């Protein structure tokens, strides 16, 4: 008798699992259909999946929440995963929006012609050191030599006799790509410790004496670390706006072709003055409306 009960329960579990998988797959299809049909109607509703860059994630989450309050019919889901994941997921159609720190043109393996770029904010990046390093200003050449491994002691750049510990972000990280593009002039970075997020870099630089790395502006305000000036220019919002601080990048939200419905409305909401002047600066990003210059995928800067 016991055995039959076990058998029956087992059977129910297996069948239930099968049914669950089947209906899940089906419901996935039907919501996609619903979404498409709903998106075309004027009454705004639907689901938007925005995934990719972890640097853009906190901002996208905040703006998404605020957008949903105004449009209760829309569900905005924001996920991380990295810029590469964002670009490939949006290109394959599994996400409506792909978040990236770099232009799609700069990423290998992405057909940028199929994707439409929506720039939503600007992020500044600054070199940071452990607070025991007695250097406050550094030239761009010195910074490059540190990250390419030519300078290995703080003594050479006016500090005390201490070994430099270089901490990089992972190969392919958007922040790293921006930093290397603006600092290394095409040279290869020295092989060193790599960490996978701004948060980890912040923690490790603050606890490792003699360490140097780079962080988005939003992460600079922490104990144990200090930002370096480059050629006497301070890394702050004002200097990014007129490009006197060169290490900055756009945060991109890519869509496959022209966006429609809820996705379109969300992207439009992101670039409204209201969002750009309130949520964006509050989270440590720089609003597009404040920028005095523009920059294209090839790195060419022009006045607005």
């Amino acid at each position, binding site marked *: 008798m016991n055995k039959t009960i076990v058998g029956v329960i087992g059977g129910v579990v297996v069948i239930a699992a099968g049914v669950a998988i089947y209906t899940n797959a089906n419901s996935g299809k039907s919501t996609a259909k619903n979404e498409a049909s709903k998106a075309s109607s004027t009454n705004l509703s639907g689901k938007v999946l925005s995934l990719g860059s972890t640097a853009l994630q906190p901002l996208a989450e905040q703006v998404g929440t605020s957008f949903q309050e105004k449009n209760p019919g829309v569900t905005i889901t924001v996920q991380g995963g990295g810029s590469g*994941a964002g670009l490939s997921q949006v290109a394959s159609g599994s996400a409506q929006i792909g978040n990236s720190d770099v232009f799609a043109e700069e990423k290998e393996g992405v057909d940028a012609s199929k994707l439409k770029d929506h720039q939503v904010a600007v992020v500044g990046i600054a070199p940071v050191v452990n607070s025991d390093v007695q250097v406050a200003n550094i030239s761009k050449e010195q910074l490059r030599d540190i990250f390419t491994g030519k300078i290995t002691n703080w003594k050479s750049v006016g500090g005390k006799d201490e070994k430099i510990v270089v901490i990089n972000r992972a190969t392919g990280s958007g922040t790293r790509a921006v930093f290397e593009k603006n600092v290394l002039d095409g040279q290869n970075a020295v092989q060193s410790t790599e960490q996978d997020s701004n948060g980890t870099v912040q923690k490790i630089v603050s606890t490792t004496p003699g360490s140097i790395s780079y962080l988005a502006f939003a992460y600079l305000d922490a104990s144990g670390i200090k930002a370096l000036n480059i050629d006497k220019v301070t890394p702050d919002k004002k200097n990014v706006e007129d490009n006197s601080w060169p290490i900055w990048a756009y945060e991109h939200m890519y869509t496959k072709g022209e966006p429609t419905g809820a996705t379109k409305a969300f992207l439009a909401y992101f670039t409204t003055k209201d969002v750009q002047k309130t949520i964006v600066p509050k989270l440590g990003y720089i609003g597009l409306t404040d920028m005095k210059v523009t920059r294209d995928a090839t790195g060419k800067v022009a006045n607005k």
Partner: protein
Amino acid sequence: MDNITQKLMQKSESTKKDSLGKMISLAALILIVIVVVSIFAFVMSRGLSTFITGGVHVKDFLFGSTWNPSVVNPQTKQPYIGALPMIIGSFLVTFLAAIIATPFAIGTSLFMTEIAQKRGAKIMQPVIELLVGIPSVVYGFIGLTVVVPSIRHIFGGSGFGILSGTIVLFVMILPTITSMTVDTLKSVPRHYRESALAIGATRWQMIYKVVLRAATPGILTAIVFGMARAFGEALAVQMVIGNAALMPHNLISPASTLTSVLTMGIGNTVMGSLQNDVLWTLAMILLLMSLVFNLIVRAIGRKGEMK
């Protein structure tokens, strides 16, 4: 008479249930086999495309010592994708962790089964079960905030490296090896011990010359299982090893493992690009290694059967 014939010819209630049960188990089995086969097929097809469509030589991949998939080597026109630093890093942390953990595991399990059975069962059993249940991110976080700074204070350097990874993994695989060793020691027949004691052996002589000898295959299996866990562990190791794709020159310089490079890179690459494919190749190596660990366990089991 007819009635009886009919009853005998018909399937009884129990027979029907029997075949139903058989079908359900078979369905479950087939489902699992499909899952395993498709995982293998997927990882293999992705991993092998590095060599087939990417045109990379297997030798360059396995024995090259420069890992920088986003940079192209001007001489060979191929990206730098030498995986040797990670392969060595993975094996080093795995073997070192197993070497350190084994004596502790055997000691603990001997205490639990031979020396203080009651206290062992009451105190050690729950402790070990608790250790198994701690999520690896917690081990990693403790490693990052306790182990890494201590190593930095004692040995200098940044504190990240093989040594920190080994220490974290040692704690992680200790419960695995211990609990399996306990099971093995318990399965050593009672009459082995009784015979040893009867001919005048001390307890230590009994343990050393009889119990441990009889349990050797089981203990080896336990160690291999622990190594398999260490080899596949990603998160905790990634947090403390430093993730520098460099050949490890000593135990306290930053290094990397197959898993740490995988978790760091997979979100930053685009599906279908060579940079992404090489990561799948690393995943393939991990999968093949776990297969090897499994085969070793089977070989030990077959050779070491108690006769």
